[in-house]
């Protein structure tokens, strides 16, 4: 049996314990992988590790990051949602119609777009909670229904005449580097930061966030301690609907038009980012920094391989392998830490 530590030994012990806990976190591994991959690309492709390139990357991935924040909440709650890309498209298209055909003012258009997103999210929640349909089935069904309706009513026609307030670039910060490159912090990046912060605060600092974690960990126990599981389902899917709609609006802002099928096929990338970051499909685990790191890794890989002139198909393979490797490292390292501890190891209090 280990002896109880004392004095400086104890401090070392505490640091060790902290490292042991840290080592089990997917974020730690992800961070190390990002450092390694980043350095590698930096050495191989000179243009890679420049500030403008990094900021550019962030902006490219801002839409996916915004939606990933919503998906993260749903994953933590123990569910899954496949319909967010369809939701984003529908919300974007509705808003675009209101803006270009009816010429409604900006606040109304934005509000309507977000409301459509939340509404579709709530339909998912209703199907899952009241009709007890498994989340993956319910959202796959919703995905086809809402996307097909969108294609039917839009006839697949894009909307190009978006108003200026929507499409003009908003720059919050601009600086010229010594090299002559220009660094801009634009609206999508700022919104991404805001969503990350909001989601982080919601999930770690508020009662409802902790309730969502509890529900993801053991839904029956959550019900038994008096958590309103139905309400949480609405909150989680509603929040994802909100995030998806916001992502849709930002996407139209970046490209300057609303194309009904522009967002399809982003499902897998967003899901990968969340899972890479440690959110589990089984629910109850994951963090916002983890999901952001997941997005960063995907962005770095894609951009780095691109700069190196590697085929985009190869990129898909790399993504797949990265997901496999990083999730297995996480699982293996946490399993090792999970060895049964004897009582002697539990630190005493006081």
């Amino acid at each position, binding site marked *: 049996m280990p002896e109880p530590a004392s004095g400086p030994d104890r401090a070392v012990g505490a640091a060790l314990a902290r490292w042991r806990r840290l080592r089990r976190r997917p974020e730690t591994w992800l961070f190390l992988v990002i450092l390694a991959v980043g350095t590698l690309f930096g050495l191989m492709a000179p243009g890679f590790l420049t500030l403008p390139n990094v900021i550019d990357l962030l902006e490219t991935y801002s839409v996916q990051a915004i939606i990933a924040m919503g998906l993260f909440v749903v994953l933590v709650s123990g569910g899954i949602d496949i319909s967010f890309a369809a939701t984003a498209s529908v919300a974007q298209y509705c808003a675009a119609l209101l803006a270009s055909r009816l010429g409604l003012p900006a606040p109304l258009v934005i509000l309507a777009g977000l409301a459509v997103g939340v509404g579709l999210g709530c339909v998912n929640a209703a199907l899952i909670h009241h009709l007890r349909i498994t989340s993956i089935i319910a959202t796959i069904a919703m995905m086809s229904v809402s996307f097909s309706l969108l294609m039917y009513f839009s006839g697949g026609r894009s909307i190009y005449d978006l108003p200026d307030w929507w499409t003009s670039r908003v720059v919050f910060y601009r600086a010229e580097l010594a090299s002559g490159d220009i660094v801009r912090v634009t609206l999508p990046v700022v919104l991404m930061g805001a969503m990350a912060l909001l989601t982080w605060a919601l999930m770690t600092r508020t009662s409802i966030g902790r309730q969502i974690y509890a529900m993801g960990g053991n839904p029956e126990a959550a019900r038994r301690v008096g958590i309103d599981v139905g309400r949480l389902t609405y909150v989680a899917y509603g929040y994802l609907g909100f995030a998806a709609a916001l992502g849709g609006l930002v996407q139209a802002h970046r490209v300057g038009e609303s194309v009904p099928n522009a967002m399809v096929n982003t499902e897998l990338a967003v899901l990968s980012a969340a899972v890479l970051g440690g959110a589990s499909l089984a629910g109850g685990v994951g963090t916002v920094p983890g999901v952001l790191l997941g997005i960063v890794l995907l962005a770095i890989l894609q951009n780095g391989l691109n700069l190196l002139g590697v085929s985009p198909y190869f990129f898909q393979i790399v993504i797949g392998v990265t997901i496999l490797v990083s999730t297995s490292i996480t699982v293996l390292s946490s399993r090792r830490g999970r060895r049964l*501890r*004897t009582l002697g190891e539990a630190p005493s209090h006081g």
Partner: protein
Amino acid sequence: MSGETPFLRIKGVSKRFGGVQALIDVDWEVRRGEVHCLVGENGCGKSTLIKTVAGVHPPTAGTIEIDGRPVPSLDPAKAKALGIQVIFQDLSLFPNLTVVENVAVESTLGPALRPVQKAGMRRIAGEVLARLDFPLDLDALVADLPVAERQITAIARGLAAKARLIFMDEPTASLTRAEVDRLLAIVARLRGDGIAVVFVSHRLDEVVKVAERLTVMRDGRKVGTWPVAEVDQRRIGHLMTGVDVEHGVVARDMRAAPPLLAVEGLSRRGEFADVSLTLRKGEVLGIVGLLGAGRTELALTLFGMNRAEGGRILLEGRDLALRSNRDAVRAGIAYVSEDRLSLGLVLPQSIGDNLVLAVMRRLKNRLGLMPQARRRALAAEWVERLKVTIPGLDAPVRTLSGGNQQRVVLAKWLATRPRVLILDSPTVGVDIKNKQGIYEVVADLARGGVGVILISDEVAETFATCDRVLHMRAGRIVGEAVPGVVSEHEMEERIYA
């Protein structure tokens, strides 16, 4: 006292799950500040009664009154608001959260956007655990805790919130005597504070120690309620089962039998050191000791789940290199873990499927397929031998009562026809009559030449079943006793000294 309105009164409560009538027309009351025991065989409806009063299951018929006022459509939140707390038999913890968040989960139930009171939650958890006098790493994830510590976490959660009535559904199942005594002291103190406690346990000696009144249930009906002073353990056993239960076998001298499993100088850092023992063919060998003595850790190593860092394991004289539990199963070693509820069963699957899980290979016919008839026959045989009460082989295990779930796990491993069977606390949560049934099965297996290692928290249990009992302390084997030569009492003195 009896003149005032009781805290809880239920009238004509019935509960049906599909075809299973779990509660039939139960009238019952719990007075303010009393300690009330609820006993009965496995599957008689104790947990269902508790869950009904806690708002988890709405009753099919009947009324629930609290403080003399009927509460229609009770749900968990409402029950809590009325001061009802439950320590559930399956613990109902959140494995992904820390001990603090589990114990003080109540603090996160407030308004949606209220900031989490981290410091407050820590204080609450620290205080309750101090009250229980049980050191737990507050920041550990519950998933990483051994069963006993999980049980302590669940108890702490029940005690942390403000309550007027606390249901404890087999809170002591995975605890050893020291913790049980502390819990019972706390129960006594709660009574002093005017908080009523309803206590479910299959250890009847505990029951008579703490309770003032006792309610016996059988097959979903209430048999009756008595002051504890008026009934003794024997009578309670009789009321529960309708028959007289005897137990005890005589220890046999197995020294002449050939050795089956020999362990020499086995060690694992921080768990156990220099363990040597010999299990003979047909012998039942008990291992007793305090929580954390390293008994479960030793068992896990013998079963190949953990690797030994030093020493040898010999099976019938041949060195056994266990790289994983698959090797152990292949060598004929079976292990029924103490953590049955989370490790042993696939809860949503049927009883039959769970039973044949470990013996699929043997059931295959020449074509490599598994005939349904053979599968069912095997499952039915074990259900019969262990007297598992089930609605049918196709019912999901999730719907069985706690004690019956445990017997399904046991049956699953017995069906592998092991040469060495390691049982870790096999009768936790099993009622007295069926405990006896399990002891008989063990004795039967031993007579057939199987070597059995029985890890138990109850000295009485090992003395009633084993030929030899080893005493483990702080990772080492420190003594050996032969039941009958050494008395139960002497052994307990040694362990708790």
